[in-house]
């Protein structure tokens, strides 16, 4: 979640470092068993804590599982997650346009790089609270706030990665294109596009995780639909069980989407050996 494309997903690391992996494969079949057992142990600890506290303030896992089921059956899960994801997708569309423009400018000129680096740094690191409050103040409780906020959060990630992609274009190829008088659109399509897409994908993956958290936060502060809004509702009604249920759904959705994006990435760019 925290690296750009230069670092590889964790599951590949053991292969790069045979020295560390003294036992290369025996874990293959048992890895699900171990991580499953760890999860069960964590839930068991939670259940134990719930029994000791014995108060609605810490519901036991079974109750929360019931709430999760109820939320899924009632259809609230689908509608609210769909609402949130639509807002994020709209935000990402804006961020993509802005990020491509800024990234190209940064990739082509060192002045632009230093011009944008401080604003992008602040944009990418501002506490989520300030985004949420600004979104609420400027756009009210409609969909505008979360959309603009997720666009603002995602833009720096996409712009930085586009800039890296533009810089990665081979200068010799560029010179050759000029020598053979290729058209601008040809250069864009055959030289820049393949170079930039891989980097953009990485930016989207890491930007997504950030954007979704801040988007949910914005919905907590002011919204009329979405996951954050439901969490807010649970908080105001002091329903810890509901809140934990939504949290569980949130985690599952986020992990699933991230895995899906990672899978897509490795499928799309399997032809690029130096990256895959």
């Amino acid at each position, binding site marked *: *979640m925290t690296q750009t494309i230069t670092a590889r997903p964790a599951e590949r690391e053991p292969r790069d470092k045979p020295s560390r992996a003294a036992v290369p494969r025996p874990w293959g079949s048992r890895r699900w068993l171990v*991580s499953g*057992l760890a999860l069960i142990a964590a839930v068991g600890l939670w259940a134990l804590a719930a029994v000791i506290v014995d108060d609605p303030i810490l519901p036991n896992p079974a109750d929360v599982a019931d709430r999760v089921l109820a939320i899924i059956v009632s259809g609230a899960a689908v509608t609210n997650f769909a609402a949130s994801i639509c807002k994020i997708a709209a935000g990402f569309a804006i961020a993509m346009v802005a990020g491509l423009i800024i990234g190209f400018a940064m990739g082509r000129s060192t002045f*632009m790089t230093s011009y944008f680096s401080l*604003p992008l*740094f602040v944009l990418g*690191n501002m506490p*989520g609270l300030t985004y949420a409050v600004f979104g609420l103040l400027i756009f009210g409780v409609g969909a505008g706030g979360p959309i603009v906020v997720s666009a603002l959060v995602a833009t720096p990630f996409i712009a930085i990665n586009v800039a890296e992609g533009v810089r990665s274009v081979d200068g010799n190829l560029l010179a050759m294109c000029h020598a053979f008088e290729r058209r601008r659109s040809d250069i864009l399509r055959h030289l820049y596009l393949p170079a930039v897409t891989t980097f953009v994908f990485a930016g989207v993956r890491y930007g997504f*995780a950030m954007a979704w958290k801040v988007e949910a936060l914005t919905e907590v502060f002011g919204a009329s639909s979405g996951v954050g809004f439901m969490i807010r509702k649970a908080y105001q009604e002091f329903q810890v069980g509901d809140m934990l249920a939504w949290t569980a759904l949130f*985690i599952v959705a986020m992990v699933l989407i991230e895995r899906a994006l990672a899978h897509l990435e490795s499928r799309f760019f399997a032809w690029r050996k130096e990256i895959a």
Partner: protein
Amino acid sequence: MTVLTSWQRQLRSQGTSAAAVLAALATVIGAWQLAVIVGNRVPSLAETIGRLGAEAAIGELWGNLAISMNRFLLGLVAALVVGAVIGVLMGLSKLADLAFSDLNAAALAIPAVIWALLTTMWFGFGWLTPVVTVFLSGLPFVVVNIAKATRAVPADLILMARAFGIPRSRVLREIVAPAVAGSTVAAVRFAIMSAWNGLLLAEWFGSTSGVGWRSRYWYDANQLDGFLAWVLVFILLLVIADLLILGPIERYATRWRTA
């Protein structure tokens, strides 16, 4: 390398001219002035800074900052210690790695606001709410990066050093330290960023003192200049922590890598 480090590198790259940064600042201030003119109730920069001065004059600025920093450091140190233990364990043992990595991935996916709301409901309006939120929102980032640092230790180099009878302290200084420095600084940096976010939220929802509470006070009073004044403080703290303190440390720690 991290996204943040690439910003870092750009901020100090040879092309970084003061002129470009100044131009960026001028653009931001210009955009703000435009917003003041267009928007009907956006306070101007002068008003905001004036309000900040007023906060300092009545003693709210430094007092709340001190309270918040106290909580922040307490939670952060706890997260760093616990996270380092788990992370080293994950880096050393495959079993621990398998057991913790899924749990940690889940913890990474939880937004800080959920911890802030939960701790508010659990612990009420005491000091425990912000401290626990800071701890929980910083912890997964420390675990991930410390595990990475531990895995980066070159085992074959250590074996070779042992074969040649190099003393332990020299092995630590010249093989282990350079290998783990980069990821360790990243662990601290991500923990700070995410914990600070958690602290603000916890104080916003469940506290009666601290910077988050104070900014909420102005927000609730519908005084935007007060809120913006505190946002300026947050941004300033961020720039100081990351660009002026952690940046140079990281540059020093990873100097062997940049040729």
